[in-house]
């Protein structure tokens, strides 16, 4: 199933946990330190060096440097749960789509449900495949952070799995409950 970010934002309820999709749209790579910087700035009520309200989708990713001639470096997902503490604030500010890997805390799940957001996982360690789905890259902010800088990715048909749907169904939690 092919899904475009614009359509998904209008109605995140169209996807259910476990569903595989090919995702297209604009995402921003934001991981550990960049989350901390955004969070601290938003809490203080200060200005960020970019317009945060433009960000609808976050991809937890720290790409490797781009080889000349390529669009992007290797860019698979990183573990999402490290930024859990920041996620409810991020979602309350309007972000709808999260992409990473691994499980999330219960309070993130609640925030996803409350904000009608959605969390997808990509297959970790398949960076060579995923990088082919990135069509355009733009630097956004925090160059000094090296691989943790923020980039804007234009994505076409990235293979994802719906891990937590907008109703709060969590694929990891359901798997755990089934194992009991």
């Amino acid at each position: 199933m092919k899904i475009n970010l614009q359509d998904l934002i209008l109605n995140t309820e169209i996807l259910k946990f476990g569903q595989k999709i090919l995702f297209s749209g604009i995402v921003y790579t934001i991981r550990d330190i960049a989350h901390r910087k955004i969070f601290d700035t938003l809490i203080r009520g200060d200005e960020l060096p970019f317009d945060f309200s433009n960000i609808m989708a976050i991809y937890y990713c720290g790409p490797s440097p781009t080889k000349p001639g390529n669009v992007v470096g290797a860019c698979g997902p990183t573990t999402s749960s490290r930024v859990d503490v920041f996620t409810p604030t991020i979602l309350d500010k309007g972000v709808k789509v999260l992409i990473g890997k691994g499980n999330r805390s219960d309070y993130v799940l609640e925030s996803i449900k409350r904000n009608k957001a959605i969390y997808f996982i990509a297959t970790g360690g398949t960076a060579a495949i995923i990088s082919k789905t990135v069509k355009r890259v733009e630097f956004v902010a925090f160059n000094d952070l090296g691989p943790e800088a923020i980039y804007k990715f234009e994505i076409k048909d990235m293979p994802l799995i719906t891990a937590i749907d907008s109703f709060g169904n969590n694929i990891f939690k359901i798997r755990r409950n089934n194992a009991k």
Partner: protein
Amino acid sequence: MRKIKCKTIINAVKYLCAKSNFELPEDVLKSLIQSINLETGVGRDILKEIIANAKIAKKLQYPLCQDTGVANFFVKLGNDVCIEQKSIYYAINKGVSLGYISNYLRKSIVSDPIKRTNTKNNTPANIYIDIVSGNKIEIVFFPKGGGSENASELKMLTPSVGWKGIKEFILDVINNKAENACPPLIIGIGIGGDFASVGLLSKKALLREIGSVNPNKKYFDREQELLNDINKLGIGPMGIGGKVTALAVFIESKPTHISSLPVAVNIQCHSHRKKMIII
């Protein structure tokens, strides 16, 4: 005394940094291919994706994973070797710096764990040296990603808990953390030694080839027992459910104090990159 130029080591390390990050070792690839038939549905698709990724990365000489890791080196340094000009530590770090920069590999090291400023050349490397007899240098490069390393644990158990207690601890770690560590996993286990050495032991265990037989029959049986139990947890590829949670379990043990039973579980993701060179 055999003289080896510093430059020779630097070039070898540069080569290892590139090759190991672009090419999944044969034993890992073979094990992944064998595991496809055990899985169905999305889990099976994930395994196929991982295998396809390995083929593309090798063909294009592209990183298998964006996390090109902490640079770990296990060195066997012959006592008849004299390294000219600079130390082996200098040579390895220089090789890492040149290798990571020239091959566009990600620099994932921060100089201070609290301040967290990127060193921008992926140094310092973790270098573990054993002095052996002979006139050669064996260098094993083992880049390790942060996600799986974060899922690892170390615990000082009491001797009374025995194998049963050790097993409980290991299965608990896997059950709680595996889903964030990019399964199917390779599990390195250290048992014995002390607080400092057991962690290193569990990391060394990961250097064994998948399919290799532990020469200690008791530990071979325990490895099989653990692998079966881990794969019964139902975690599966990328943690979304399935039968293939781990590809291998390797145990290394060493003598310990009468009152101690240290156990370390070093978790490794499916992108289990490692490569050896002998100079």
